[in-house]
């Protein structure tokens, strides 16, 4: 069993502590996935993790995403005590989990909570691309389900940032069943007349696309994000042919009718605030 105490969460600005960790972060350089330029982490942080040289979107951790997105100091995390369980005793999973926890400083692949954007309150989930490929373990599903239940109870809209490689194989059927569980919670929140906006980010695939990521009232996507049920390599193998240019990218999905809007990173805060305002109770009166 993993002990929570073993992995101390790094402090960050989200919790209002600008200390030496931030200093270290400023010196850190990150290679751009597109142009390969080495960009200082602080530069990235200051401009929404967009490459200053080529404009490519860098991946953001769940917490970086929240810190960047919401009104300063407004994030209140929910269910931070929930940690993954190796229910199947799957070979080498325990080690994989502790490595992911150590590297991310988080307990699981999703953060949930409440926050405000330009003063508009909402419930929020943000997934972590680096935590075992952003896969949906049972506790990822549990946290998202609890978030939608909490939002329904407290009459809050939900904004979610999705990024996922799909199911978490090491949790077998428990991972698969999260697709049903989260869908049930989204349905109940929706039946309560509440808004759910999702932002699909690179990459969002597999079981997450086949459940809560596609069940939103408004589906936004980041430019060029890979979005699909099956991964491109799997499709290439089954079809034994090269995939068309731009296949499964956000622009392709919008052209096929599955995405409402593609929103560049620097426009997201404003658009989300606009959407929240448009759906505020009394907005129609």
């Amino acid at each position: 069993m993993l002990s929570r105490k073993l992995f101390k969460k790094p402090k960050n600005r989200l919790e209002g502590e600008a200390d030496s960790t931030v200093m270290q972060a400023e010196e850190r350089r990150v290679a751009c996935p597109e142009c390969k330029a080495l960009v200082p982490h602080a530069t990235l942080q200051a401009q929404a993790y967009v490459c200053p040289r080529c404009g490519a979107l860098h991946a953001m951790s769940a917490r970086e995403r929240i810190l960047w997105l919401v009104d300063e100091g407004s994030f209140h995390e929910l269910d931070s005590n929930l940690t993954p369980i190796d229910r199947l005793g799957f070979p080498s999973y325990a080690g994989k989990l502790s490595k992911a926890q150590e590297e991310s400083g988080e307990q699981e692949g999703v953060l949930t909570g409440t926050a405000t954007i330009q003063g508009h309150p909402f419930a929020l989930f943000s997934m972590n691309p680096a935590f075992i490929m952003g896969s949906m373990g049972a506790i990822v599903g549990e946290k998202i389900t609890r978030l939608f239940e909490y939002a329904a109870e407290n009459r809050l809209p939900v904004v979610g940032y999705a990024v996922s490689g799909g199911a978490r194989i090491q949790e077998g059927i428990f991972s698969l069943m999260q697709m049903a569980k989260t869908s049930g919670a989204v349905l109940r929140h929706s039946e309560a007349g509440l808004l759910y906006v999702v932002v699909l980010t690179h990459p969002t695939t597999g079981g997450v696309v086949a459940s809560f990521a596609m069940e939103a009232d408004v589906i936004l996507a980041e430019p060029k994000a890979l979005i699909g049920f099956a991964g491109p390599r799997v499709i290439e193998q089954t079809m034994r042919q090269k995939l068309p240019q731009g296949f499964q990218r956000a622009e392709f999905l919008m052209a096929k009718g599955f995405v409402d809007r593609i929103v560049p990173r620097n426009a997201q805060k404003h658009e989300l605030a606009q959407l929240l305002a448009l759906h505020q109770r009394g907005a129609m009166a």
Partner: protein
Amino acid sequence: MTEAYQRVQAARQKGRPTAMYYLTQIFTDFLEMHGDRRFADDPAIVGGIARLAGKPVTVIGIEKGVDTQEKIARNFGSAHPEGYRKALRLMKQAEKFGRPVVCLIDTSGAYCGIGAEERGQGLAIAENLMAMMGLRVPVISLVIGEGGSGGALALGVADRVWMLENAVYSVISPEGAASIVWKDAAKAAEASEALKLTASDLYGFGVVERVFSEEDGDFAALCEKLREALTTEFTMLSALPTEELVQLRYDKFRRIGGDER
């Protein structure tokens, strides 16, 4: 060779009865309904209206096909979005007329292809999950062979999920898991064991409520038992107030993979 892998092979065995067999053995007067009224008719999914012990029911099954020609025509039971949309259309029709729904699951997974992606495979499955969670008539899903991932779950959000003794149900195929986790598709037997995908595993986890013996290969006898079991169960489920039925279904899935420590 592991026990789990033997089950996987039995579930895929050539000559094992497919959905149409159960459909014609258990039910009478089956009238097949075609198409999703959006794009096409997907032969990987069959559905329509039949009678169960005289009473109308909607039956939907994933059909792999029997001979080679039929298998190809039915895409080996790997459905496209239009298949899932046909299933959803028939479930909504059942809801309108107050008929219970039976789903027969047998697929290695939803189809992974260009057309399937272009027409929203993920969305189609997601919409089924959400709709089944709220469906206002009783649903029983029976895994008769392979329960492959999201493509199986798209017909599996039911008040009762039952499995045959040699059926398997998994988040990913053993070959897929082996190639991702061990970078070696040949380790499928180990992966089968690790995934805990047999009917008895899933019964132990509370993911399925009932496992049916295959009567040593006497599938006609099995169908007799299934007809009785379905009839009894629907009588019970139909007696529940609708709100309670839907709440109990939600609660059942809500419990799976929670924080029970």
